């Protein structure tokens, strides 16, 4: 295990209650707290644990996004990543374009493992890792909740609808992680200071030779339908009465 690449995305923090813009052009992002996508943080944590387990693999964290994405990459460096690459853009990037971009970085970096979160909590698309694996012609192990590495292969337990599935994949491979894989560490102040000296390269689609895909366009964003305010019952007897009346029990 020489090198691990971790792909992270800057997203609205999961604690923020997202609001739709009145003109329907998207959601309000002004002054909203932004963070590393929580799944990607778990992906990074897993890479760091593999490094610290004695493999001493280099952990390269990469992202695609606006200039401010450097903040999230700095946080990743403070967590323990060795260096960072930002593919800077102001354009919206759909999953297939993101996968092409990560493929270009994979071809440059030749990692043994690529980690991503299983989905980003902004568009909830759940596509990029699988697409990268397809374009790269390598295995994918999605929704990982447990990971064991051996010479040239990984055994991955996946959270699937029926329970837990285990598969074995040859390396290099793409692994997308689920919430129960680990609990990410907190960054400490000295690490933040140290992270400022770690390399963070900024590049572009052009420099990487990536052509963006224009397959999807968001034309309108609306708030979801609201549920009608319900009733409060005072005790179990009244609850049972209401449910019986509705024909539910």
């Amino acid at each position, binding site marked *: 295990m020489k090198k691990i690449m971790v792909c992270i995305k800057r997203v609205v923090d999961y604690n923020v209650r997202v609001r739709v813009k009145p003109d329907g052009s998207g959601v309000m992002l002004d002054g909203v707290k932004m963070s590393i996508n929580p799944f990607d943080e778990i992906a990074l944590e897993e890479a760091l644990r593999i490094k610290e387990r004695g493999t001493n693999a280099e952990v390269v964290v990469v992202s695609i996004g606006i200039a401010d994405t450097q903040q999230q990459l700095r946080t990743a460096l403070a967590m323990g990543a060795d260096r960072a690459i930002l593919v800077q853009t102001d354009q919206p990037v759909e999953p297939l374009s993101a996968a092409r971009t990560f493929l270009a970085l994979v071809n440059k970096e030749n990692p043994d493992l690529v980690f991503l979160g299983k989905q980003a909590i902004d568009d909830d698309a759940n596509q990029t890792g699988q697409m990268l694996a397809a374009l790269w012609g390598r295995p994918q192990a999605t929704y990982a909740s447990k990971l064991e590495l051996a010479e040239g292969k990984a055994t991955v337990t996946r959270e699937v609808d029926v329970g837990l599935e285990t598969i074995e994949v040859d390396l290099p491979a793409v692994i997308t992680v689920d919430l129960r894989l680990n609990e990410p560490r907190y960054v400490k102040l000295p690490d933040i200071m140290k992270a400022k000296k770690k390399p963070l390269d900024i590049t572009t689609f052009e420099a990487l030779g990536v052509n963006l895909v224009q397959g999807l366009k968001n034309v309108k964003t609306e708030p*979801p339908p609201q549920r009608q305010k319900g009733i409060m019952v*005072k005790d179990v007897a009244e609850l049972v009465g209401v449910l019986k009346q509705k024909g539910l029990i």
Partner: protein
Amino acid sequence: MANILIIGEHDGKTLNPATLKCVTCARTLAGAKVSIALLGTDTAAVAAQAAAVQGVEKVLRIDRPENQHPLAASFAPQIVALAAAYSHVFGPSTSFGKDLMPRVAALLDAPQVSDLMSIDGAYRFRRPIYAGNAIVTVEADPARKLIATVRVASFEAAAGGGSAAIESVSLEVALPSHTRYVSVRSGATDRPDLQTASKVVSGGRALGSAENFKLLYSFADKIGAAVGASRAAVDAGYARNEMQVGQTGKIISPEMYIAIGISGAIQHLTGIKDARTIVAINKDAEAPIFEVADVGLVGDLFQIMPELERLVGN
């Protein structure tokens, strides 16, 4: 005209109801022709079920020994070989479809729309983003194939009574050996399946232990409900991972959802937005779950549950 191929999900014996919902979704597009592809080792029985689904024209059987387990790396190139004749390829928004469809899309150099909740036109769809806190209308490039996963909670299952043609297809596609199935561990029970149950009883962190979850099982069995859980309950080991409801668990649409000792975080609410009636039991009158509940009861679940079980029996 749209020619839609649906990738059927099955366990070798039974067609997963999620596939029936994909059919309903596909048929909301006027004039669409709908086929189902089944990959497996022997799909005869499942193909018969698929052929009986109303509105399906053709069922394609792709039987080969390597198809015993639904590995995306093996299924995807076969679907790519089938896809040539179709304008759209749909799969269910289940762990099977979510894993597989993006791999298909990338190999086809096609975009994917995830969690499609309605079709407004052959290349115009609506889908939830931000854990369901916004709904976006997406337009896709009509010059490309369109891959989608169908948000199964948004559609009813298609009815029976159809009589599609069944066709066995042999594909000359080389399959990779870099991905191997090892095992699956499932907590299969006799209770109704969480994803299709008409009633669901769910427990949260407040249950405090796996032992206490028995309070829910016992009540659920009495009313014929499936049992779900919040992420906190799963993380704490009170319930199995496949019981998790929410953004990263299952998105369900039962007639009745009873949330017991669950606070109602947005990530949890995403999973239950389509429930017809939401009942909440929580000792905190300010818990956000009450904002979405149709019927709420403030109190201690450890007092309420035994009494509830007793009273529903009467």
